[in-house]
């Protein structure tokens, strides 16, 4: 099992995958090589409902990393999923084309970016619910 490729193939299909331990039924994000709850290597995947809340977020407006020069401004968020795991993700802009309508604790849903974007930058995207 290649946990990075499996997760990314899920994103490419428009699915957000959460690693699931077949032995203790624990869920892991980010995916691990052994279950951090019970150390089992008997691991698989479940599809996330895609429902979560924004724990925190920011809009990067300057100083982008290499390869992100044409992306700015863009928003990054720590999203807590209802399955009890969390991840760093991108946020789609709001109705005004910025992110000023977002707040901490807002409900968000998984909303993948177009396939060609995911192919270049395989990360999860969310939008205001």
């Amino acid at each position, binding site marked *: 099992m290649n946990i990075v490729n499996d997760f990314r193939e899920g994103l490419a299909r428009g699915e957000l995958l959460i690693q699931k331990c077949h032995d203790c039924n624990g869920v892991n994000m980010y995916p691990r090589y052994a279950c951090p709850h019970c150390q089992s290597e008997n691991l698989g995947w479940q599809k996330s409902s895609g429902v979560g809340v924004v724990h*925190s*977020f*920011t809009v*990067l407006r*300057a100083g982008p990393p290499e390869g992100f020069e044409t992306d700015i401004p863009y928003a990054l968020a720590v999203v807590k999923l209802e399955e009890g795991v969390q991840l*760093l993700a991108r946020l789609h802009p709001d109705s005004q084309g910025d992110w000023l309508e977002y707040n901490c604790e807002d409900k968000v849903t998984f909303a993948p970016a177009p396939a060609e974007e995911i192919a270049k*930058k395989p990360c999860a995207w969310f939008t205001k619910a």
Partner: protein
Amino acid sequence: MKDSWPLYLDRTSPNDPVFVGIGEIPSGKYPERTFIGDLTKVALLAIADAAMIPSDIDTILLIPNLHSFDDQADLVFSRMVEELGLSRQAKASFMVHSGGSTSDNAVRTASGLIAAGHARNVLVLQCERWGSADVMAMINMLTKNGIPQQWEQVAGLQFNAIGALITRRYMHESKSTPEEMASICVTLRKWANLNPNAMYKDKPLTIEKILSSKMVADPIHAMECPMLADGAVAFVMTSAANAKERGIKQAVRIAGSGGCVSHYSIGQEAEVGQLGWSIAARRAYHQSGWTPETADFGEIYDSYAAVTAIAIEGLGIAKKGEGARWFAEGNGDPGGKFPINTNGGLLSAGHTGVGGGTALIVEGVRQLLWKAEKERQVSNCQRCVIGGTGGSYMDAQVLMLERVEYGS
């Protein structure tokens, strides 16, 4: 989880580890200075300050630089032993590394070596050349270090965004205003204006100036971001018995320490607005027997204002949710009731990479040895809280330092 720690740190023990000397050169942009030249200079300053000569040093601990891996390799492979004339005299020379919290872990490492008899006189050395390095190369390095490449680099995370995620959550929980957040940077600048070694020693700063600077990563403005600097510091540690035997009259001991590694990826931190500070503080207070009222001042990591506000709340110095307002009321200022970051901190003395935390420890020791300039000296201070953190604020590290005086 077992969460009580041995109370081995006995101030009456001959093996009690103590700081006896410090060295520092100014932080800022100094393209004419050199890496090995600066290391040599601060090493000799610290050794002389400890009333020692280089051949007294048996162990060198290196704090890593981040401006060049080739220069870092020089440290790893014992170049400073040769530069200081310690060939065959030195017993060990090695690097300790946990990013921004390295200095706290270096102090623990040196203490363990001294207390267990593996080292007698330990020299801890740090130099960074960030201020003179290629800015784009450093930005790229900081985008790849402390951020998981498989899960978070692909989303475009970088260092200011990490600071912004922490700041946003802190402001949400505490209902702190942009003005209150900016006041923390102003407090630090007041201290820097009193520190001849600070990068911004000559430049005053106001809340208005900060809030009118451009937004870099909401809610952080450009003037709330640390400036990369060149800088170097060093300190010498030994045992209480050696210090007394050498006729040293005052030193600084470690009353206790605590730490908490809460995450690696910022996306996996369960409480981005709180981090590991309250757990680290509980452990440090337990081991030292101190309370939040015991210390006279603090030297607490401040790469972004929110990091320090969160830390002083976790340490119980300010009430929960009141950290930023505590600064806005002037409590951490020169003349305030609990001075914070009396060198100006990373935000105003200059961000010297892994060295930012080391400079804060050196400043804490300087204050406790009553060696700061008159207007900057915390009068008659006896105890200091040191706070450090590294990577994506993966850990919170706390050291409790206290002045000791040896009778003649």
